[in-house]
């Protein structure tokens, strides 16, 4: 079953709930190695996304993602705002004006999103950023789509890979973002952006089921 603009909007609402639930956790993760605003920033952004969607839901999945992108860019701020904004924008561009998105579409959009974040933030796998969650997620989504899986399965695979990727940041010395100021002292901490990426993918997977 392929998903529509409405489904994407619903998934974004689920993501907003997830962020709200984990706001304090994300603040605490960021407080430990950064400046403590990550949960607050995302919460502000996704609350705004929901408000925007309450007014009107655009007609295509791409248009919904684009609306989310511009809202996040103008509401989140910090490093996460432009990075997630870019991710959603690139995903939207990849989908163009298709009316629905299937498992392959999800994998394609996720690949574009992750490449966008990499281009924007210049982080690679191993730098202890959201890339460590997103890159394995994009790979897992591609594998799953190649097997012909549907949206829910592709997203579930991506989310599982993102969880593992996020977890791997615990042992890393951060090389990008605020945590990089810590050097060796940052080891032992989960990167907040990697954690939020995994949470978002988990929310999308849950919504797709």
């Amino acid at each position, binding site marked *: 079953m392929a998903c529509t603009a409405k489904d994407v909007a619903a998934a974004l609402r689920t993501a907003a709930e997830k962020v709200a639930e984990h706001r304090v956790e994300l*603040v605490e993760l960021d*407080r430990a*190695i*950064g*400046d*403590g*605003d990550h949960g*607050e*920033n995302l919460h*502000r952004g996704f609350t705004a996304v929901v408000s925007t969607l309450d007014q009107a839901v655009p007609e295509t999945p791409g248009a919904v993602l684009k609306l989310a992108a511009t809202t996040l*860019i*103008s*509401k*989140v*701020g*910090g*490093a*996460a*705002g*432009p*990075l997630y904004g870019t991710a959603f924008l690139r995903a939207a561009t990849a989908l163009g004006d298709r009316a629905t998105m299937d498992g392959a579409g999800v994998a394609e959009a996720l690949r574009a999103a992750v490449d966008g974040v990499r281009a*924007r*933030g210049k982080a690679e796998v191993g730098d202890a950023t959201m890339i460590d969650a997103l890159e394995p997620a994009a790979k897992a989504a591609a594998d799953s789509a190649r097997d012909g899986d549907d949206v829910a399965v592709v997203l579930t695979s991506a989310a599982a890979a993102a969880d593992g990727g996020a977890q791997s940041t615990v042992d890393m010395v951060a*090389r*990008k*973002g*605020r945590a*990089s*100021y*810590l*050097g060796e*002292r940052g080891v032992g901490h989960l990167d907040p952006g990697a954690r939020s990426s995994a949470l978002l993918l988990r929310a999308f997977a849950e919504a797709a089921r």
Partner: protein
Amino acid sequence: MKKIINDPATVVAESLRGLAAAHGDILDVRDEPAVVLRAGAPVGGKVAVISGGGSGHEPLHGGFVGRGMLDAAVPGAVFTSPTPDAVQSAIQAVTGDKGALLIVKNYTGDVLNFETAAELAAAEGRDVRSVVIDDDVAVADSTFTAGRRGVGGTVLLEKLVGAAAERGDSLDELESLARRVVGQVRSIGVALTAPTVPHVGEPSFALGPDEIEFGIGIHGEPGRERMTAEPADALVERLVAAVVEDLPFERGDDVLLFTNSMGGTPMLELYLAHGIAERRLAERGIGVRRRLVGPYITSLEMQGISITLLKLDDELTRLWDDPVHTAALRWGV
């Protein structure tokens, strides 16, 4: 957490209302997105100088809007870079024919958000350039990391570039002046206590009763090392040495010494530290020609100080001495 606020979500907007009420002769504040604009901007015949970043560092940047310094400041949420639309709205409001220079502190968020805004402004046909300031020697400088943070040097950069813009320098001239200043300013800070971000409600980090964080950032990000508190003489020497050795500053150099309070340090201690820094520099044969002492780039109520050194020449000294009229810095007017 005890704070003089109503709601963490509205702290910045409410504080800006107070700033506007207090300094209506110097600046205007606009809402949604929040920007602080020099009264009467755009000012004809000059490049617009714009800066901004997360709030919580007051008087930076809104307190530096006015004649001889900034044309606009873009305040984000507390410790959070502002969004591109806010930066863009400031650019639109204050930029005239001669273009605009953005002064951006080197944090991933600031760089990305200002970069996006600059692209949007360029797409509108405006000549907008950015200069990134990264003067914090506490952080290892490397292209493989986020790089050094922009801290105390930002205040001096805004003053010098603002003065040059006021006398009519072109955008090219301002850009190269700004890069020159960035090349010869260095800072380092130390924290005795942590700031408390309103929406977090708890101190950003925990320091023991005898611990200090050496090389602290202005968002309460950790620095070089956590160490045991030591007497002012030793601590200030440590700060001065870190800064002097980095550039390096050398015997015979003329400098501006900026002794900054991170917000919660009593002036009694700040001047005490300044006096020690002056003597340590004199011992090294470095000539302190200008000084700035006070809370100018802060981290909410954090107790601590930073030391910034800028290598001076006649040109920079003249620009420093030029009139300035802002909420937080004022002379010659």
